[in-house]
């Protein structure tokens, strides 16, 4: 019998709702008709479910707890994550509550030695970063998931066993009223860093775990500081270590520092010790104000990933698939890119519109992304927590130089999470013709947002599914272009036709959305001549582009992206 905590978790600013356990129909002998089950209602499981539902797949979410995350955990969402949430239709409350920012400042011996300005293009709707506590992230996603008719969120239900054959996955679920079996076609394992699914299947992650812990503490304090990331190296009370300060909504501040050498996690969290350090940090930022503690914990950095994210009918996403350092906000942001990649593919497969082999591309693309992140984040981690004496001396040398010299300052950059380019993906086609483009967005990269008005952007108008960006330029809505767009409307899976034209004309019946690009600004950004096309996957990565193309070529590229046609076999 699984008995989850039914008292609301304590917090000085967040009110936890305890969601009721509801006896599922399978416990009364009914069969389930959900094509997919998602284990884990963390941020990644919830967005997976919302995206599957968006593509028409009925799914069940199993969550062992009755309430959302304990503590603020994944705090900073990147622009790409906000774009993913916007496509999922849930961005509004995030924007209303979250704090957007773009600047990091690094201090050493009381002097500001480095300012990191994250790039922000006027064509971007979202700032580079948005701070929002994980409780709110999950709450907003739970609200969206529970409102969706295709999603059944099941609280207080714990996965305790699983078995799969060629056709199905059978899950053993424990609840406050006992166990039951749940049979489904596909399992999405989003059950976090200690993934039960990973353990039940005997899968091991590869990579390394770094020694040394970090304390995270959330305090409420009336600090008069802008929303930025502050980093202090080598404070006198914690030599050789560093302190990070982040602003959170609700007047909360995140303090984050390395556990001093020779101290255990338990010792670091002793209330008196922790309190003294909070005072020292507030002194360091120059504002010794009263404070109140909300939540404190200790975590450590790892760069670990499974070598394969799809095993039979089980797909891993988020922390269940990889454990990444939080420097550069890798955790939740990487997971959101996983589920964005998986959802449309799994939907096509469950609906019988793509072969199972399409899921291999999910694994290949995302394992490669995770490995690249491990490599990059490993560098930041080695700077923040030098693993050996040699790295420690070099780190100190660089810090010393930053007080008078500029040349090594970029080594203090924080290598923020960014969208990965699927350049070598098997879903890309027409690579041989790519030389026709002098720039633009290359196959595998995510398309660029474009400002269309003061509060109006290209991404606001993308419908669920594939997109064809057709650069009509000065071409009229007649002739070959019109024929091609007419045929594209009937292609499967659905292709949303976005026509980008110099002047207004009547594209009725030929376009799902028309953009007037009077100065040719969008065409220039995409390096597109009149008649060019970009085929864009549902996760907004380009899979093919042409300066000129035929209906057959478009159909072929769509087939390659869905795993139903072979690249080159046109």
């Amino acid at each position: 019998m699984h008995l989850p905590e039914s008292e609301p978790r304590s917090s000085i600013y967040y009110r936890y709702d305890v969601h009721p356990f509801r006896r599922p129909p399978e416990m009364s002998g009914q069969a389930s008709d959900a094509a997919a089950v998602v284990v884990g209602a963390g941020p990644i499981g919830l967005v997976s479910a919302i995206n599957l539902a968006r593509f028409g797949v009925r799914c069940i979410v199993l969550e062992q707890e009755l309430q959302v995350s304990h503590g603020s955990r994944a705090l900073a969402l990147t622009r790409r994550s906000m774009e993913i949430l916007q496509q999922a239709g849930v961005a509004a409350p995030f924007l209303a509550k979250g704090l957007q920012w773009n600047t990091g400042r690094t201090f050493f011996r009381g002097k500001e030695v480095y300012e990191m300005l994250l790039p922000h293009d006027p064509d971007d709707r979202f700032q580079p970063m948005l701070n929002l506590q994980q409780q709110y992230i999950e709450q907003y996603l739970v609200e969206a998931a529970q409102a969706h008719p295709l999603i059944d969120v099941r609280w207080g239900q714990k996965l305790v066993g699983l078995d799969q054959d060629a056709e199905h996955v059978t899950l053993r679920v424990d609840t406050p009223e006992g166990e039951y079996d749940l049979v489904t076609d596909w399992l999405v394992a989003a059950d976090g860093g200690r993934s039960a699914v990973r353990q039940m299947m005997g899968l091991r992650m590869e990579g390394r775990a770094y020694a040394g812990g970090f304390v995270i503490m959330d305090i409420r304090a009336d600090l008069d500081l802008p929303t930025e990331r502050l980093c202090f190296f080598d404070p006198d009370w914690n030599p050789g270590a560093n302190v990070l300060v982040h602003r959170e909504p609700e007047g909360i501040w995140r303090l984050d520092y390395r556990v001093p050498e020779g101290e255990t996690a338990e010792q670091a969290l002793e209330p008196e010790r922790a309190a003294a350090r909070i005072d020292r940090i507030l002194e360091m930022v120059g504002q010794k104000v009263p404070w109140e503690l909300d939540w404190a914990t200790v975590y450590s950095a790892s760069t670990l990933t499974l070598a394969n994210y799809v095993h039979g009918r089980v797909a891993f996403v988020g922390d269940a698939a990889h454990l990444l350092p939080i420097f550069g906000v890798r955790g939740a942001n990487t997971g959101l890119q996983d589920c964005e990649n998986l959802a449309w593919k799994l939907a096509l497969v469950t609906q019988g519109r793509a072969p199972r082999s399409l899921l291999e591309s999910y694994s290949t693309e995302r394992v490669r992304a995770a490995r690249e992140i491990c490599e990059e984040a490993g560098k930041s981690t080695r700077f923040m927590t030098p693993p050996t004496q040699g790295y420690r001396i070099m780190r100190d040398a660089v810090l010393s130089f930053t007080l008078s010299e500029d040349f090594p300052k970029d080594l203090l950059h924080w290598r923020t999470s960014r969208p990965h380019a699927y350049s070598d993906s098997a879903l890309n086609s027409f690579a041989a013709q790519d030389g026709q483009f002098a720039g633009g967005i290359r196959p595998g990269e995510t398309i660029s947002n474009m400002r269309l008005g003061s509060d109006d952007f290209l991404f606001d108008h993308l419908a669920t599914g594939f997109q064809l960006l057709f650069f009509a330029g000065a071409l009229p809505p007649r002739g070959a272009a019109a024929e091609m767009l007419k045929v594209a409307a009937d292609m499967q899976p659905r292709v949303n036709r976005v026509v980008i034209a110099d002047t207004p004309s009547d594209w009725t019946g030929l376009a799902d959305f028309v953009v007037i690009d009077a100065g040719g600004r969008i065409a220039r950004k995409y390096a597109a001549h009149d008649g060019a096309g970009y085929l864009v996957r549902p996760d907004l990565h380009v899979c093919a582009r042409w300066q000129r193309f035929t209906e057959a070529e478009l159909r072929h590229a769509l087939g390659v992206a869905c795993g139903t046609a072979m690249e080159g076999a046109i």
Partner: protein
Amino acid sequence: MIPKVMTNAQLEAAYDVISEGIDAAGAEKQTLFLAKLAFALANLVGDSGQVAEAVEASLRDL
């Protein structure tokens, strides 16, 4: 101010390879190793003025 000659990627690679060199030399011999390294690089730079400039910059903020 010492001009930035290398790209960030090159600086990072140098950072890693020197860190690992220090570890390979061991705690007892790391000063000797770093002196040899600096002297060899001075010879490769081939310019006494630049070597003096680097020494001066490195002496600041120790």
